[in-house]
C-alpha cells in the first residue's frame, strides 16, 4: 500500500475515532450543559448499553441494535428518576452553581460506586466482546471497519437530530434557553425543572446508545464505565459546556489529531497527544472551542 493511501487511511481512522469520542460525549453535554448536573455515573449507563447489546447477541442471538429497545427506555427512566428524586433536593438547597457542583460530584461519585459495584456483582468475569459488522469497507483504497463506520454514522445522525431539535423545535428552544440562563428562562415561562429532567434523562439514554454502538468494536468489562465518563468529560469541556452540536466537532478534531499524531510521531504517544491537544485548546480558548467567551 502506498504511503499516501496509508496516511489517508490513518486520517479516516482518526475521523471514525473522533466520531466515537463525540458520540460518547453528546449525552454528557446534555446533562451538564442543560441540566447542569456533572454526572460522574454517566459512564455506567454507557456500560449498561454495552452489556444489553452483548447479551442481546450472545445470549438471545438477536441483532444488538434491538437491545436499544430495552436499554434506551431503561436508561431514560432511571436518569429521569435520578434527576427528580436525587438531584432536585440538591438543586433546591445549593446556594450557587459551585455549591451544587460539589454536592453533585459527591452524590454521583457515590452512585458511580453503587452502579459499578452492582455491575461487578452481577457481571464480573473477564472482558467481553462480540463480533458484529466486523468486516472491512473499502473507501477510496483505504480500509475501515464497518462497525466503526456505523458508529460514526450513528454519531453524525444523533448530532444532526439534536441540532434540529435544539434549533427548530419548541422543546429545543426551551432547552437552549435553560442552557443560557435558567433564571431568565423560568421568568419567560419555561418549566425549567421539567425540561432539565428531560435533558438529563435524554443524556442518559444517549449514553446507553453510545455504549451499544461502541461495544460493537471495543471490548469492555464491568469496570470500564469510568473511562468513558472521563473521555466524555474531556470532549465536553473542549467543545464548551452546553455546546451540544460542537461536541461532535471537538471529538472529530481530537480523533484526527490523535490518529495522525500517533502515526507520524510514535504510537506510544497517542493518548498523550490527545490530552496535549485538549489542554492546548483550553489554554487558547479557556471556555471551550465553541463558546463565545
Amino acid at each position: 500500500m502506498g504511503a499516501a493511501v496509508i496516511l489517508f487511511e490513518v486520517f479516516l481512522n482518526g475521523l471514525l475515532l473522533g466520531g466515537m469520542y463525540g458520540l460518547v460525549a453528546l449525552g454528557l453535554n446534555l446533562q451538564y450543559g442543560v441540566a447542569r448536573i456533572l454526572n460522574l455515573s454517566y459512564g455506567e449507563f454507557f456500560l449498561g448499553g454495552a452489556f444489553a447489546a452483548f447479551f442481546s447477541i450472545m445470549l438471545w442471538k438477536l441483532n444488538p441494535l434491538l437491545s436499544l429497545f430495552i436499554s434506551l427506555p431503561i436508561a431514560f427512566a432511571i436518569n429521569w428518576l435520578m434527576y427528580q428524586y436525587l438531584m432536585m433536593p440538591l438543586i433546591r438547597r445549593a446556594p450557587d452553581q459551585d455549591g451544587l457542583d460539589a454536592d453533585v460530584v459527591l452524590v454521583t461519585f457515590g452512585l458511580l460506586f453503587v452502579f459499578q459495584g452492582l455491575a461487578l456483582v452481577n457481571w464480573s468475569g473477564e472482558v467481553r466482546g462480540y463480533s458484529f459488522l466486523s468486516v472491512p469497507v473499502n473507501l477510496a483504497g483505504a480500509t475501515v471497519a464497518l462497525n466503526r463506520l456505523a458508529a460514526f454514522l450513528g454519531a453524525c445522525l444523533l448530532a444532526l437530530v439534536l441540532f434540529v431539535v435544539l434549533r427548530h423545535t419548541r422543546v429545543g428552544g426551551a432547552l437552549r434557553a435553560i442552557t443560557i440562563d435558567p433564571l431568565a428562562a423560568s421568568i419567560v415561562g419555561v418549566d425549567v425543572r421539567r425540561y432539565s429532567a428531560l435533558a438529563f434523562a435524554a443524556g442518559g439514554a444517549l449514553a446507553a446508545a453510545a455504549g451499544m454502538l461502541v461495544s460493537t468494536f471495543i471490548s469492555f468489562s464491568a469496570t470500564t464505565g469510568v473511562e468513558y465518563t472521563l473521555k466524555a468529560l474531556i470532549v465536553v469541556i473542549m467543545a464548551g459546556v452546553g455546546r451540544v452540536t460542537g461536541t461532535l466537532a471537538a471529538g472529530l478534531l481530537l480523533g484526527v489529531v490523535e490518529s495522525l499524531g500517533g502515526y507520524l510521531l510514535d504510537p506510544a504517544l497517542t493518548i498523550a497527544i490527545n490530552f496535549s491537544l485538549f489542554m492546548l485548546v483550553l489554554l487558547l480558548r479557556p471556555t471551550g472551542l465553541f463558546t463565545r467567551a
Partner: protein
Amino acid sequence: MDRRTFVRGSAAAVGAATLPHVPAQAQSAPDKLRFGYAVTMSGPLAPGADSTTISAYKLWQKRVNDAGGIMLKKYNKKVPIEYVSYDDQGKPDELLKLTERLIQQDKVDMVLSPYASHMNLASAPIINKAEYPVIMTTATTNKTYEQGPRWPYAFWNIAQPKASSGALSTALAELKKQGKIKGRVATVHPTVEYGVENNEAFLAAAKADGIEVVFTKSYPLGAADLQPLIREAMATNPDAFLAFSYPPDTFMLTEQMQIVGFNPSVMYVAIGGVFPTYKAKFGSKINGILVYGPADASGTGMDEFAKAHQGMFNRAYEAGTVNVYSALQITQEAIETVGEIDRKKIRDVIASGTFKTVWGDIKYVNQLNANPWAVGQWQNGELVCLFPADKAGAKPMLFPKPQWS
C-alpha cells in the same frame, strides 16, 4: 483487686501447675482453618481478578469443604476452610495494610496470593517477614528472578518473561531453520511493566537465536484504535507478529488484523488470549493463534474440575483459574503432608516436593515453578499447550496460522 480474689487466683494457679501433662493428641483440633486473602474486587483490575483468582478460591473452598475439609493428621480430623477476605481496590497501599491486617489482626492460618504482578510483589516482603508461605499466582516479571531469592516464603507459579518470550524465540528459530519462515518478526506491546519486560526479553532472546526483529513499537494501554499501528507493522512484511498484550488490546488487535487482512504465519497474543470470551467473540478465526499461559485438559483431575467450575459459575473455566487452583491444591497437599499448621514446615514441603495438580505436575526450583506452561495455541477450538516443548502433554505447533477466512 481484693484479697479474696487474690487467694482464689493463687489457688487456681497452683492447682493448674500440679495437673498431669495432657498429651498433644488429646488437644482439640481447630474447628476451622482460616485462610486470608486481599484481592482486587473493585476498580479496573477487578473483573480479571474475579475470573482468574477469586473464582478459583471460591471453587476450591467449596470442593474441599464438601469433602469434609483439609485433613490434619495431627488431630486425625478434617477441618473445613473459612475465608477472611478484603478488597484491596487495586491499590498497593491498601494491599500492604490489609496483608498486615490478615496476619496481625485476624491472625489467619494461611494467606493466599493477591492479583496482578505489582500486587504480588508488594505483598511478598510482608508475608515473608511473617513467615507465611504463599504461592504467588499472577506475577510474571523479571523481578521474580531479581528479588525472589530474598523471600524464601514466596513462590512464583506462572511463566516468567524469559521463559515465555524465550520459548517464542526458540520456536521461531526452529521454524527458520526448517525454512518455513524467513525469520522476520514484528512485535508490539502496551507501555506497561508486562509489555515492556516481555518485549525486552524477546528482543534479547531473538538476538541470541538469530531472529530479525524488523519492527517493534508500543502503544498506551487503553488505546482506542490500533489499526494504524497494525498497518505500520504489516508494511515491514514480517512472517511473525507477536503482541505482548493485555485483554482489551488482545481483542482489538485480533479484530483489526482481520479488518486489514494482516495474515502472518505466526501470531501471538498474550494476556486474554486464553479467555473463553475471546473464543466466543472470534469463533473459528482464533485457530492457530498462539497465546500466553495456557492450561489443557491433561492435568490431574481436570474433568471433575471443569464440571465443578461450570456447575458453580455457569461458565467455562479460564486457563488462569487453573493455575490459581493448582497453587491451592499444592498448599492443601503441603498442609496435609505436614499434618498441622506449621508454616515453616509447610514452606519446606512446597519448596521441595513434586505435586500432581490440575495444571500438570509442578515442582519449584528456588521457589520458581520449574516448567509452567508458557505458550499455548488454539487448535480447532481447543486450547493446547506447546511450550515448554519437553513437558509431558506438549503438542506440536500448528503452522502456519490459517488465513482469516
